C-alpha cells in the first residue's frame, strides 16, 4: 500500500517529463539556419511567418444562420467554417437589405445585430456538455419492459419514479426510444381513460374538478410543451401538432369520433415563465403591447419600470441609447442602481413590489393638477362610463331603459375587423355615459370610441354623481369612473406614496410632471414587474398616466412589455388569410391535407387539444382550491383554466425542471406521480437528469432542414438551416421535427392508425418545406410570400424577409388611434376598472395597491385603500394565517395608516430580504449556463484555473448584497452564504434536515458586496443550472471538487441548491377568471376567460422573502477572507487610491490662466 501523502512522485515524473519533451521540440525548431543580410530595410528574406497570423482567420466558407434563443431578437449571424469546424461567428450586417412583398425596406440602423451569446455559440456547439445520443432511465425502461404495470406506491419506488435523480441514464437507439415513448403514451392514456381511470386518479388524490375536466379521456393527462415555440415554428411548435394527433389515440382507446375525441394538453410558455405583463389583457384586451425596437427612437421620454433595456435587450439596445443622442429624457424606476440607471436622467429608487402605489400617486398628481387630456380620456378610456355604487357594476342601458335593444354594430369594426361573434356581442352588451349636452344618461357601444363619439354628438361627463331610476322604479346612485377614481386616489397623496414606495418625493413629482408634459412618452416594463404576484395591478396602474395623457397608439408612445419571445400572434390567422399558425399546430388529424399542393388557407384546423398552464403542475398538480372558514371548500380556478392530472410531460427547447419555480418540490413531491418525462435538448440539463428520456436535438447550427422564426420586437421573418447552411450534426442528434415525426410514426404503429404518421407525411418524405409554405400562405403577416423566393434572396439575405405589418416600425394600437376602432376590451376602451364579479370579490375592481402575499414587511396581501367602492371578500381567512394558498385569497382592505403598523410574520422572523432574480447578459435563461466563457464572465468569481476547489465549475453563482447589510450579519465580501426562504415549504414541502435531498436543494452561493442594492434587497441572476443529486455527489467526492455529474456529464452552476430553492408557485386568483373578455392570441377573434400565454396564471419567482446566513469563509479553500474583496478596489473596502479614483480626483487638471 502506498503511503504517498500527495501522490507526488507519479505526478512529478509525468509533469517534468512532458515539460522537457516540449522544450526539446521547441529547441529543434529554433535550430533553423539564420540568413545573414546586410540591410533588413531593403530586403527581408522570409515573410512566411506572417502567414501564421493571416491563417488564423482563414476560412473555407461562410453561411448565415439564426441565433434563436428566448431573447426576443432572433439575430441572423455569419458563421465561418474551416475544415468543417465553425471557427468564429460574426454579426452579419445584412438587415438593411431586408424587404417585404411591397418593396418596403428595413432601415440600416438595425445593423449590427447579435450579442455575446450568438458570437460564442460555437462554444455550445462543440461543448463537452452536449447530449450526444438518446438516453433512457434504467428504472423506467424496466417498467416498460415489464409491460407497464399500474404504478402503485410500491412500484413507483421499485422503478425509481421517486428517485429519478439517482437512477442511471443509459443509451438507447432512436427507434427504440420512439417505440418506448409511443408505448407509454398509449398505456397512460388507456390507464386513465373512462370510469376506471377516473377512479384511479381520485384514489391518487387529484381534485375532482381536474378529473371532471378530462371528460373521460386519458389522453388529457398527456402534457406537451414546445419551449417558446415561436423560436422554431415547425420544430418547437410542432410539439403541439404531435399533441393534437393524440385525438386519434383517444378515438382508438375510447371509440370516440372526430366530434368527441380529445387530444392532450398543450402547456404555455410566456405566462409560465412569468414573462407576460398579465395586466395588459385587463387594460386593452390584447395579450401584450410591444413595438418594434426602432420605434424607441421616436420617444421623447423613456421610462424603464422594472426593465433593463441595457442588459436584457443587448442586440437592439442601441435604439434606446440613440434617444440620449436625440435629447430624450430617460428615467429608471428600480430598487437598485443598475446598468440602465447609469444612462438615466434620473433614477427613482423604489421598494420592490410597490410600483402600483407610485403610479397611483402619479395619476393623482395628473388629475389634481388638471394635466390630463380630457378629449382622449372621454374618447378612449372607461373613465366616463357610469358605475353603480350599490353593486359596483357598470350601469347598463337595460338597467334604466325599458326594453332596451342592443344597438346594431354588425357593420362596425367589432365585427368586420375584430371578429366579434353574435353570442359574444350579446354577452358584452352596451354601456352608459352621462351626456353633458342633454344632461342625461345615454347608451354607447364598444364601437363608440374616438371620433365616433363626437360624431354622434355625445359629450360624456367625466365628473359627476347622478341618480337614475332603474326599470323597476328604484333609484340608483351612479358615478362616472373618473369621479370614483378621485375618491380612490385620495389615499395616494405624496407623503403616503413616499412612505409606501420609499421613492423620493421630489422625483415622484418630477416624473408626474414629465409624463404630463412630454410626448411621446413610453413606459417599458419587464420581469422586474411581471415576476411579482401583483404584477397585474402594477401593469394596470402603469397605464393610468398614459391613459390620462393620451400616450397611446403613436410613434414612441405606450406601455410596452418586454420579456419573452412569446408571439405566436405574429403568425396570425384570420377569415381572409386562413388558419395561420393554427393550421400548423392544430391541423385536423381526421381531415389531413396530404396533397403537397394544398394552399395553406385550405388547411382544416381543429384543436382537439386544450391548452393548460404548467403553473398548476407547478403547484402540486392542483388548481387553487381552499377550504375557507366562510364558505367551506371554494374553487378559485375557472373552468377555462382547469388543469387535468399530469401523467406525461414531453417538452423540447426548454430546461423545464430547472426553470420550474419550487423546482425541488417538483422533483420530490410532484414528479414521482408523472409516469413519463421526455426532454429534447442539445445539451445535458438538469431536466434530463430528472427525466425518463433525453433526446438529443440538433442545434441551430446543425439544422438539416429549414426552420422558421420571428421576433416580438422586430419585423423580421427568418428562415434558416438545411445542409448548405449548417454544419453536419456532431452527434447522434436530430432536428426537433424529425424527433416528433419519429414519435408519430411509432405511435401510428402502436395504435394501428396510419393517420398519426401522416401528420408528418412531408417530414417523413424529406419535404418538410411544404408545411412552411402553408404557414406562409395562411398568416395575415406572411400571406403572399413564396418560400423559394425568400430562400433565393429575393427579399435580401436568403432566408430573410420582413413580415407584413401596417407600419414599420410596428406601433401597438396605431389602428385604434388612426381608424377609430375599439380596443379589444368589452367596452372597446382602455380600462381602469373591472366590474367582473371576480374582480369585485377580490377587491381589484379598482387598480389598487396590494402588498405581496409573501414579499412584504406588512400584512401579506393586504389591499391598501380607504376607497368605499372596494368591497373585498376575505372568506374568513384569519389575519395570522400563513398558508400559501390562504394568503393568496385573503382579501383584506386597510388604509395605509393601519397597514404600516402590521407585520409579516416572516419578516419578523428575519426573512427581511427581497430577492430579485433578473436575467443576466451572459445567458438566455438557462442557455449558455455551461459555456466556460460565460461562466467566467458572469460573476466576480470566474476562474478558469479554479484555484478554489470549492467552485462548482469555472464560474460561480453570486448574490449581490448591500455591504452594510452583509456586515451587520457577519458576512464578508466573497463568503459563501445560505439563502433560505420560508422554511414551511422551501426548498420543498416536507423537507427534513437529515434527508439527503435537502443537502442537494438548500441554496448556497457566494455573496458579493454591491452598494448599488438597498439594504433589504439582494439579487441573484436567474437561469443557471441547479444542483442535482449527481452534481452534489460529484462536488463532494471528486478530487477537483467540480459539480460535474458522473456519467451524465451535467455541469451544475451551484455547489448546493438553486435560485429555485427559494421560489414557489403562487396561484393568482385574478389570472384564473372565466369571464375576462379579450382578444385571442393568434387569430382575429375574442374569447372569455382563460387562454394559455394570454389570460392565465403567471408564475412570480420574485414573490419571496429570504434570510441570509454565513456558510463558509470566502478565502481560498474556505480560510479567511476572499482576497479580491480586500485589495482596496472592492465596494466598501476602497483604499485611498480607489476613493480618489471614484471621486475623480486622481488627476487634477489645472485651469488654464486666462
Amino acid at each position: 500500500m502506498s503511503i504517498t501523502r500527495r501522490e507526488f512522485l507519479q505526478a512529478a515524473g509525468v509533469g517534468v517529463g512532458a515539460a522537457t519533451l516540449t522544450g526539446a521540440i521547441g529547441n529543434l525548431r529554433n535550430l533553423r539556419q539564420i540568413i545573414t543580410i546586410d540591410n533588413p530595410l531593403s530586403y527581408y528574406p522570409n515573410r512566411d511567418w506572417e502567414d501564421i497570423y493571416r491563417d488564423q482567420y482563414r476560412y473555407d466558407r461562410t453561411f448565415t444562420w439564426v441565433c434563436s434563443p428566448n431573447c426576443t431578437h432572433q439575430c441572423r449571424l455569419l458563421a465561418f467554417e474551416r475544415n468543417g469546424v465553425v471557427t468564429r461567428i460574426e454579426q452579419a450586417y445584412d438587415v438593411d437589405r431586408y424587404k417585404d412583398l411591397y418593396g418596403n425596406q428595413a432601415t440600416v440602423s438595425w445593423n449590427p445585430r447579435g450579442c455575446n451569446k450568438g458570437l460564442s455559440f460555437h462554444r455550445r456547439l462543440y461543448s463537452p456538455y452536449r447530449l450526444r445520443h438518446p438516453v433512457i432511465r434504467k428504472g423506467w425502461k424496466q417498467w416498460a419492459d415489464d409491460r407497464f404495470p399500474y404504478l402503485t406506491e410500491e412500484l413507483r419506488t421499485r422503478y425509481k419514479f421517486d428517485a429519478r435523480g439517482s437512477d442511471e441514464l443509459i443509451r438507447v437507439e432512436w427507434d427504440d426510444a420512439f417505440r418506448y415513448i409511443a408505448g407509454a403514451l398509449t398505456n397512460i392514456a388507456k390507464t386513465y381513460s373512462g370510469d376506471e381511470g377516473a377512479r384511479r386518479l381520485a384514489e391518487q388524490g387529484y381534485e375532482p374538478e381536474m378529473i371532471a375536466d378530462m371528460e373521460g379521456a386519458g389522453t388529457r393527462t398527456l402534457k406537451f410543451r414546445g419551449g417558446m415555440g415561436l423560436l422554431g415554428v415547425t420544430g418547437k411548435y410542432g410539439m403541439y401538432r404531435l399533441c393534437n394527433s393524440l385525438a386519434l389515440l383517444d378515438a382508438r382507446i375510447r371509440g370516440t369520433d372526430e366530434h368527441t375525441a380529445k387530444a392532450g394538453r398543450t402547456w404555455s410558455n410566456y405566462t409560465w415563465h412569468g414573462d407576460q405583463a398579465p395586466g395588459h389583457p385587463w387594460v386593452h384586451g390584447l395579450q401584450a403591447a410591444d413595438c418594434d425596437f426602432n420605434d424607441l427612437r421616436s420617444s421623447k421620454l423613456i421610462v424603464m419600470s422594472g426593465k433593463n433595456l441595457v442588459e436584457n435587450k443587448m442586440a437592439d439596445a442601441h435604439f434606446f441609447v440613440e434617444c440620449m443622442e436625440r435629447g430624450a429624457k430617460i428615467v429608471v424606476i428600480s430598487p437598485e442602481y443598475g446598468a440602465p440607471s447609469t444612462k438615466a436622467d434620473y433614477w427613482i429608487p423604489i421598494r420592490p413590489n410597490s410600483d402600483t402605489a407610485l403610479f397611483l400617486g402619479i395619476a393623482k398628481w395628473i388629475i389634481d393638477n388638471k394635466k390630463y387630456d380630457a378629449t382622449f380620456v372621454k374618447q378612449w378610456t372607461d373613465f366616463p362610463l357610469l358605475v353603480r355604487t350599490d353593486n359596483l357594476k357598470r350601469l347598463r342601458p337595460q338597467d334604466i331603459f325599458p326594453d332596451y335593444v342592443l344597438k346594431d354594430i354588425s357593420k362596425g369594426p367589432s365585427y368586420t375587423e375584430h371578429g366579434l361573434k353574435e353570442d359574444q356581442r350579446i354577452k358584452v352588451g352596451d354601456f352608459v355615459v352621462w351626456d353633458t349636452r342633454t344632461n342625461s344618461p345615454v347608451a354607447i357601444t364598444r364601437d363608440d370610441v374616438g371620433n365616433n363619439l363626437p360624431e354622434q354628438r355625445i359629450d360624456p361627463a367625466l365628473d359627476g354623481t347622478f341618480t337614475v331610476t332603474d326599470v323597476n322604479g328604484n333609484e340608483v346612485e351612479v358615478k362616472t369612473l373618473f369621479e370614483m377614481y378621485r375618491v380612490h386616489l385620495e389615499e395616494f397623496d405624496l407623503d403616503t406614496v413616499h412612505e409606501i414606495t420609499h421613492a423620493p418625493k421630489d422625483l415622484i413629482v418630477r416624473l408626474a410632471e414629465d409624463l404630463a408634459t412630454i410626448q411621446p412618452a413610453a413606459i417599458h416594463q419587464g420581469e422586474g414587474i411581471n415576476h411579482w404576484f401583483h404584477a397585474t395591478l402594477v401593469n394596470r396602474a402603469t397605464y393610468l398616466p398614459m391613459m390620462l395623457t393620451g400616450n397611446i397608439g403613436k410613434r414612441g408612445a405606450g406601455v410596452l412589455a418586454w420579456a419573452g419571445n412569446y408571439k405566436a400572434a405574429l403568425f396570425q390567422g384570420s377569415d381572409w388569410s386562413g388558419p395561420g399558425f393554427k393550421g400548423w399546430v392544430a391541423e385536423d388529424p381526421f381531415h389531413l391535407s396530404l396533397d403537397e399542393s394544398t394552399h395553406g388557407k385550405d388547411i382544416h384546423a381543429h384543436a382537439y387539444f386544450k391548452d393548460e398552464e404548467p403553473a398548476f403542475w407547478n403547484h402540486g398538480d392542483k388548481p387553487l382550491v381552499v377550504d375557507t372558514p366562510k364558505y367551506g371548500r371554494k374553487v378559485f380556478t375557472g373552468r377555462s383554466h382547469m388543469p387535468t392530472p399530469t401523467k406525461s410531460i414531453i417538452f423540447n427547447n426548454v430546461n423545464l425542471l430547472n426553470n420550474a419555480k419550487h423546482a425541488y418540490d417538483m422533483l420530490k413531491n410532484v414528479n414521482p406521480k408523472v409516469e413519463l418525462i421526455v426532454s429534447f435538448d442539445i445539451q445535458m440539463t438538469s431536466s434530463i437528469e430528472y427525466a425518463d428520456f433525453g433526446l438529443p436535438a440538433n442545434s441551430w447550427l446543425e439544422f438539416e432542414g429549414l426552420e422558421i422564426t420571428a421576433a416580438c420586437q422586430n419585423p423580421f421573418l427568418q428562415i434558416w438551416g438545411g445542409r448548405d447552411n449548417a454544419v453536419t450534426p456532431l452527434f447522434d442528434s436530430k432536428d426537433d421535427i424529425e424527433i416528433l415525426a419519429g414519435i408519430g410514426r411509432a405511435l401510428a404503429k402502436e395504435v394501428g392508425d396510419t393517420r398519426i404518421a401522416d401528420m408528418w407525411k412531408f417530414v417523413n418524405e424529406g419535404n418538410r418545406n411544404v408545411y412552411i409554405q402553408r404557414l406562409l400562405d395562411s398568416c395575415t403577416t406572411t400571406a403572399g410570400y413564396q418560400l423559394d423566393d425568400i430562400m433565393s434572396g429575393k427579399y435580401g439575405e436568403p432566408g430573410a424577409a420582413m413580415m407584413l405589418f401596417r407600419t414599420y416600425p410596428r406601433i401597438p394600437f396605431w389602428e385604434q388611434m388612426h381608424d377609430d376602432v375599439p380596443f379589444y376590451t368589452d367596452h372597446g376602451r382602455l380600462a381602469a376598472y373591472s366590474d367582473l364579479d371576480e374582480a369585485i370579490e377580490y377587491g381589484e375592481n379598482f387598480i389598487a395597491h396590494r402588498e405581496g402575499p409573501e414579499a412584504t414587511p406588512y400584512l401579506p396581501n393586504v389591499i391598501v385603500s380607504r376607497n368605499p367602492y372596494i368591497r373585498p371578500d376575505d372568506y374568513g381567512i384569519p389575519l395570522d394565517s400563513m398558508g400559501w394558498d390562504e394568503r393568496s385569497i385573503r382579501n383584506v382592505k386597510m388604509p395605509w395608516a393601519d397597514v404600516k403598523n402590521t407585520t409579516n410574520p416572516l419578516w419578523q422572523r428575519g426573512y427581511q430580504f427581497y430577492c430579485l432574480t433578473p436575467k443576466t447578459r451572459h445567458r438566455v435563461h438557462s442557455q449558455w449556463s455551461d459555456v466556460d466563457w460565460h461562466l467566467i464572465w458572469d460573476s466576480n468569481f470566474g476562474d478558469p484555473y479554479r484555484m478554489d476547489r470549492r467552485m462548482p465549475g469555472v464560474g460561480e453563482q453570486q448574490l449581490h448584497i448591500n455591504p452594510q447589510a452583509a456586515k451587520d450579519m457577519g458576512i464578508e465580501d466573497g463568503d459563501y452564504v445560505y439563502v433560505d426562504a420560508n422554511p414551511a415549504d422551501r426548498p420543498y414541502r416536507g423537507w427534513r434536515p437529515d434527508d439527503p435531498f435537502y443537502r442537494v436543494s438548500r441554496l448556497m452561493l457566494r455573496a458579493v458586496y454591491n452598494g448599488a442594492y438597498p439594504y433589504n434587497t439582494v439579487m441573484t441572476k436567474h437561469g443557471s443550472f441547479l444542483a442535482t443529486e449527481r452534481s452534489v455527489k460529484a462536488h463532494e467526492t471528486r478530487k477537483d471538487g467540480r459539480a460535474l455529474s458522473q456519467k451524465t456529464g451535467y455541469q451544475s452552476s451551484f455547489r448546493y441548491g438553486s435560485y429555485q430553492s427559494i421560489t414557489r408557485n403562487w396561484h393568482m386568483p385574478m389570472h384564473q377568471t372565466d369571464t375576462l373578455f379579450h382578444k385571442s392570441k393568434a387569430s382575429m377573434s375574442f374569447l372569455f376567460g382563460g387562454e394559455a400565454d394570454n389570460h392565465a396564471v403567471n408564475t412570480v419567482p420574485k414573490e419571496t422573502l429570504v434570510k441570509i446566513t454565513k456558510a463558509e469563509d470566502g478565502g481560498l479553500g474556505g480560510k479567511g477572507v476572499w482576497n479580491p474583496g480586500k485589495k482596496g478596489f472592492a465596494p466598501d473596502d476602497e483604499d485611498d487610491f480607489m476613493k480618489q479614483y471614484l471621486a475623480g480626483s486622481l488627476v487634477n487638471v489645472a485651469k488654464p490662466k486666462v
Partner: protein
Amino acid sequence: MNGLVSFFFQFRIKESSVVVFVDRQLTEKIVLRVVDDARRRGDHPMSDEYHDATVNFYDLPKRDRASAFDTLHRDMFDRFGFPSLVKELLDDFPILREQVGSVLIGSASSGKDESVDLDTGVNHTDRKRRIGMRLQPERFIDLIRLRQRLRVEWLQLQDTIDPTFQYDTSQRWDDLPPMEQNILRDRYGALWNIAVEGRLARQFGENERARMNLLDQFNRLYRKHPDNVRDVVFQRLWDEGVTPHPSLVALTENRRAFGEFYSGRSVESLSDEREQDISEEIVPNVGDPCPLCRFPTYRWVIRAATLNGEGAKTVGVGEIFERIQAEHPNWKPEYGVCERCYERYELLSTVPPQSERAQQCR
C-alpha cells in the same frame, strides 16, 4: 531509474548510497535565480563567473552548447550546497536514511503546488523508498529557511514509517461530508505539526515564530475548550516525544480524549469512539456542521450553554426541541441545532394543515 537520467541531474551523497535526482530545468532555474540574486545583492564575482563561463559556450559547436550549459549548471548547483543539504537532512533523520534510496526534486509552479512525499519503494529494484519533493525555485535562495521547512516535512515523513508513531493510512473520514472532513483534517494536521515542531525545537533550537503560529491555529480549531485546557494540551503535545498517530486521531475526533489528554492520561483507547463522541460535543462551535443537516453554520440555536466564537446564537424553546427529538431520537438539545433546522420545526405548527394536506403528493 534510468529513464530519470534524461530529465534529471544525478548527485551522489557522500558516505551514503542515497542518490539525489534534480530536474534539469529546475537546476537551471535555481542557478540563474541564485546568480541573479547575488548580482542584485552586489555580489558581482558570482555573476561575472557565470557570464565568463557561459560566454565561451557560444563559440562552441551548436551540438555541444547544451551539454556545456548542463555541466555548468550541475556544477554550480552542487557548489551551492544543495546536495549537501540533503545529506544533512538524512543525517538528522536516521530512519529515513536507512530506508530511503533516492530523493527526487522537481519544480513547483506555486506554493499550492509544492509537496514532499514518500513512496513505498516496492517498485524499485533496491526496494528502497524514494522521497519526492516538488519545490519552487525561489525556495533555494534561503537555504536556512529551506532546511527548517524541510525538517518539518521530513520528520513527518519519518513518522509515517516509524513504528512507534503507528501511522495508519486507512481513510477514517471518507464517510463524512467534505466540510466535516476538512475540519477534522485541519485539526489532525495542526496537532501533528505541534508535535513535530516541538520535537524539532528540542533538537535544533526553539522556533518561536512557528510556535506562535501553531498556537494561534490550535486555539482557533479548538475554541470550544477552555483556555487553560487548551494551554495544557498544546504544551503537552509540544513537549512530548512522539505522540502516536492513534492519539492524534483521538484528539482530533472527540472531546473526551481531549479531556483525558489534558489530565495526562493516554487517549489511544478512545480512538474508536468517534461516532459516539462526536455527537457528544456539548458546546457547538461557529462554522461547525449542524448535527441535523450537517451544513456548517454560524447561527446556532442552543439550550443554554455558551457558544464559542462570534456567531449568532439563540436560546431555543423546549417545545421545539421536543419536536426535533421526536424526529431525531439520538439528538439532544445540548448539541445545538442550526437556526434553519430549528425554524423548520418551529414553523411546523403555524402552517394550516390544509395547505400542506391539499398540495402534498398523495
